[in-house]
Each structure stands twice: as C-alpha cells, then as structure tokens.
C-alpha cells in the first residue's frame, strides 16, 4: 500500500499547490483589472444611496474581500473564503452566490460531456481495433484518415457544420436551449423527450470531436501490441483466436484508460464552443457570459472550477493506472 499512499500524498500536495496558484491568478486578474471593478462597484453602490458601511459589506460579499485594505489583506480574505467554498456573489444573477450559479450550470455541462465522452470512447476504441487490424486495406485507410480529419478540425468548425446541416439545411433537430418551453419541467415524457432531443446535437458533436483522438490512439496502441513478442508466443502455443484477441485488446486498451480518466477532467470546461453554438446553458456558456458582462466573481469561480476538475482528473488518472496495471502496482509488493 505504501507506494500508492506515497503517490497519492505527492499528487495531492502538487494538486493543492496548483489550485492555489490558479486561485491566485484569478484573484489578481479580478483585482488588477483596469478601472478596478471592486472599487467601481463600491462607488456605484454609494451613488445608489447606500451607506458606506452597507456598500462595503455588499461589495465584500460579492468579491470575497473588502474594497479597501491592503492587497495582502484582500488576498487572505479571498483565500479564506475559498476554503469555505465561498466564491462571492454573481452580478448578473442578482443575489445568487457564485457557487449555486455554478452548480446550476454544471449539470448542463457534466451530463452531455460525460455522455459524449463515453460514446466517442466506445465507438472510437472499437473502430480503432478495426483500423489496426485492417491497416493495410481500404477500410483501415478510411478509418485512419477520417480519424485524423476529425481529430485535426477544431471543435467549433465541427459544431458549426453540424448545426448548418441539422438545423438549417435539414432542420430535424432543435437549434438551441435545453428543452422546449412548452413542456413543464419535471418527470414527464414530453419534457424528458424534449431534453433528449435538445441534447442530441451537443452530445453527438462533442462525441465526433473527440472520436478522432480515440480511434488514432487505439489504432497505434493495437499495432504496438500486435508487434509484441507475447502475441506471437501465444500464437505459437496454439492459443485460440478469441483468447489472443482478448490479450491484444486488454493490453492495448490499458493506456487508453488513463487518457479517458484525463479526459474526464474536461467534464466542466470541455464544451465551451459547443455550448455557445447550441445555446446550451452549461459552464462554458456561463464563463463566456461572465467574461462578456464582466461578472468577475463568477468568471473567477468558473475558471477555478474548470481547472480544479482537470487537476483532480490528473491525480485520479495516475492512481487509476496504478490500480489497473500490475506492473506499476507491484512496486508496492517489493517495498512492503
């Protein structure tokens, strides 16, 4: 166990440092914006007839630190708030703390991105195996080329093309939003059907955008494993094709699981373009909105959340690899 524990401790320490660094960056961006939004807000509240004390308190609630006071004081206040999961209050969502705005948006990001990731992983891995086995034939060429193309094209190009095809030229899918307003939100068939209908385009686009990477990764992994000695050895021992196939598949997919774990880090910030294009109110959409409206507390919070997810996924990916690969895991036996 010691190896895993030591690894975990090291990763956690590094992860916390990273998150602090990112928080510091977002603090200084908010604090040092030309025109000082914190002071401006305070000023505005005063002009609206608020008493200086009340205005100060309102501003502090919004940004997590007092408009006056030294930089250091503001910084420690902000960081202390962070540890209480207090990220301030959003300007554009009056009265709502940033955390609850983020929580509301997160559900519209996490589920579609998760669905898209799993879908593309599944299809990409299977197609990758085919691309590897048929690599000298036409089918293999086609799969590899289509993979490289989809992998190389930026997400927004794909999303715009998908939108142009399925909402403009052949309008069979809704253009944006999460569900038709005709339906009462809740657990009823109409609403859920509409939810799925609206999620189709974002999910499929996200899946297409990541599919190329999976197929390329799986193909090269399978080709590498096929060239390994133990596959030839298994053949020479007269192992059944189905068993050899399993040997190849398991060994080839192992490195991909790590990439999968890493890509789950994109759960919160991976679909910015897609959300914007399909008008889907997830975290990416929120981040863009907060930037456009200069809602700095919200912006900092969203950025922090998106980055923290990636850091956590990095840690999980490494631990996961330690668990599934006996070669890494055995370090523990040697040292125990």
């Amino acid at each position, binding site marked *: 166990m010691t190896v895993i524990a030591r690894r975990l401790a090291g990763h956690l320490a590094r992860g916390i440092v990273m998150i602090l660094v990112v928080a510091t960056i977002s603090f200084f961006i908010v604090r040092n914006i030309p025109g000082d939004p914190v002071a401006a807000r305070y000023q505005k509240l005063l002009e609206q007839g608020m008493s200086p004390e009340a205005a100060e308190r309102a501003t502090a609630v919004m940004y997590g630190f007092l408009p006056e006071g030294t930089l250091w004081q503001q910084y420690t206040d902000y960081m202390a708030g962070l540890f209480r999961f207090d990220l301030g209050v959003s300007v554009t969502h009056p009265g709502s703390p940033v955390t609850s705005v983020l929580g509301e948006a997160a559900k519209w990001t996490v589920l579609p991105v998760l669905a898209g990731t799993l879908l593309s992983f599944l299809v990409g891995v299977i197609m990758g195996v085919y691309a590897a086995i048929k690599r000298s034939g036409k089918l293999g060429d086609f799969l590899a080329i289509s993979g490289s193309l989809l992998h190389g094209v930026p997400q927004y190009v794909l999303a715009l093309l998908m939108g142009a095809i399925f909402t403009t030229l052949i309008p069979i899918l809704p253009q944006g939003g999460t569900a038709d307003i005709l339906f009462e939100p809740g657990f009823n068939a109409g609403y859920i059907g509409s939810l799925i209908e609206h999620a189709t385009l974002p999910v499929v686009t996200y899946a297409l955008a990541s599919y190329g990477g999976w197929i390329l990764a799986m193909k090269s992994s399978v080709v590498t494993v096929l060239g390994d000695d*133990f596959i030839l050895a298994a*053949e*020479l*021992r*007269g*192992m*059944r094709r189905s*068993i050899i196939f399993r040997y190849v598949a398991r060994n080839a997919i192992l490195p991909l699981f790590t990439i999968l774990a890493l890509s789950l880090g994109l759960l919160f910030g991976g679909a910015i373009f897609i959300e914007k294009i399909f008008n889907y109110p997830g975290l990416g959409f929120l981040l863009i909105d907060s930037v456009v409206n200069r809602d700095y507390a919200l912006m900092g919070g969203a950025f922090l959340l998106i980055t923290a997810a990636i850091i956590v996924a990095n840690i999980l990916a490494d631990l996961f690899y330690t668990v599934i690969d006996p*070669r890494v895991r055995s370090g523990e036996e040697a040292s125990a």
Partner: protein
Amino acid sequence: MPGQAPGVRIDGLTVVYKTPAGELPAVRDVALTLEPGTITGIVGESGSGKSTLALSLLNAVQPPGRIAAGSVDIDGLGDVVGLRGEELRKARGKHVGYVFQAAQNSLNPLKTVGKQVLDLGRSHGVEDLRGLVRDARELLGRMGLDGARVLDSHQHELSGGMRQRVGIMLALVLNAHLVVLDEPTTALDMITQANILKIVREVHAERGLTTLVITHDIGVVAEVADRLAVMYGGRLVEQGPTRQVLGDPRHPYTKGLIRAIPRLTGDIAEARALPGRPPTLTTVPERGCVFRDRCELRMDVCDTDDPAAVAHGDRIVACHAVKVREHA
C-alpha cells in the same frame, strides 16, 4: 515413454521474404532430419535464417515471409506446411512446443502465469484443468522453482532465468514431444545459462523428447546437442554428430567458426576472427555458393554453382572444395 518421440524430416525447404526488391530467400533448399529422441543444434550467425527455419517447423513464418517450397514432415502430424487454420493451431503447443528467446517477453504482462496456463488448456480443449495446473506446478518444481508461487506471479515479477523456465514449462505442459528452443540462453548470465542447459538435457531425457536447439553460441550446442547443423546465408552448409563436426570440421565456414573461439588453454592470439561479414537478405548472392566471398578455398565453380549437400558417412557437407578433396 521414449517411443513417443516423433521424428522430423525437413526437405527442400525454402522460405522467402517479400521486399521492395522482390521475394528474397531467407532459407534456401534446406534438408534436415531430426531423429526421434535426439537433440539437434542449429548454429548460425544472426541473419543466417536459423530462426526462420525454426518457425517453419510450426508453419509460423511471419509475413512478409512465406514458405515457398519444401516440406516439414513430422511423425503423427504429417506435412505441417500443408496445415491450415484450426488444424495448424491445434498442432502448435500440443504436438510442437516452442520456447522463445529468453530475452523476449513471451508472457502476457497483465495475467498471472497460472491464468495463462488455463488459457492454454482451454485453447486445446483440456478437460481436466486442475490436472493441467498440477502438471504445470510439478514441471516448475522439477526445474527448481516454487511452482505455486510462480503460477501466481506476473511476468515482471520473474527473473530472466525464471521466465525461461516458465517458457519451457508452457511448451511441455500439454505433453508435446517435439520441442523447439530458439536461443534458449541468450541474455542470461553464465550460471543461469548452465542451469537452463542442464534442465533442457534432463527434461529431454526424462520425457522422451525430440529437441531442436537454435543458437549462435557453439558452446551451447557442444553442451547439449547430439547432432549439429551449421547454417550460413540461409543454407545448411554442414551437419553431423556434434563431436565429429566440432572435432573435425570440413566446411571452410565451420572451420573458421571454430577457429574463432578462444581456447581456455593456449595462446589467445590463436583465436582468429573470420574475415568479412555474413550476408544479409539483400546481399546473399543469387547464384553460386553463399560463402564464397569469405572463403579461402574459393574456386571458379563456386561463382556459378550452388554446392549440393553431399553425405560423407555421417556427415553432410555442401562445399565444392570438400567434394573435390574427397574424390581426389
């Protein structure tokens, strides 16, 4: 049970590899007989085609190579060159055991040895899987390992010598009586090397096997083999009983090879390296003797005619010069 040991007759075997320059022979017109119950050693430098020859015994030459001509007739199996699909698969492992080069990783890194024994059993329709595992454990114990522990280990937890013994176990556990060992001791330290060779000899005798050992190390062959075949540029240039070949080499290549070994006693300067380099797939001459460029006995006929393998008593030598001398 020595009666079970099969004999093997290789005849006219030619293996070609497809290259941009056309199909080039890696093994050309090789004839070799493995008598039942003997250990035969094939010696050659890397690139001489010895591993390709070994793979031909299981009809397992890897693309872009293929067996272009000849036959490999194994008692109880028939001509394996003609075997296809399931028939071929079942012959591998069950009739012919193949032990990989020690330096190679011949085990699935993600599964324990025991699970791979079970996979092997299932592949060959073994009903008594418990019995199979017991056999595996005993075989490993016979080779001086803690069988139960090894079966529970992954490849990376085993040393080179242990892996090699596991490889031998996997080749024997299905009761194959023809065993091919490809560079069984390469990349092992001297002590382990000696150990493995001892095991090979003992297991061979106990189980009544026919064994083929492929190596570049004459020492290995001298240690274990009853008969010795020397390979050069895809051809068998000389074969015969090991002692005779080593004590009185006839072919100029064999002579050069033996002269290149430093003796424990005597002057080290007496060891002389063979001048020149062995041919590769692309530099093997199309016509004439493959060895002529490095040969001190070269004659005009060597440039045009490939010397036929001629039997001289127990010995078979493919050399124009030797033939001339014998007949003179």
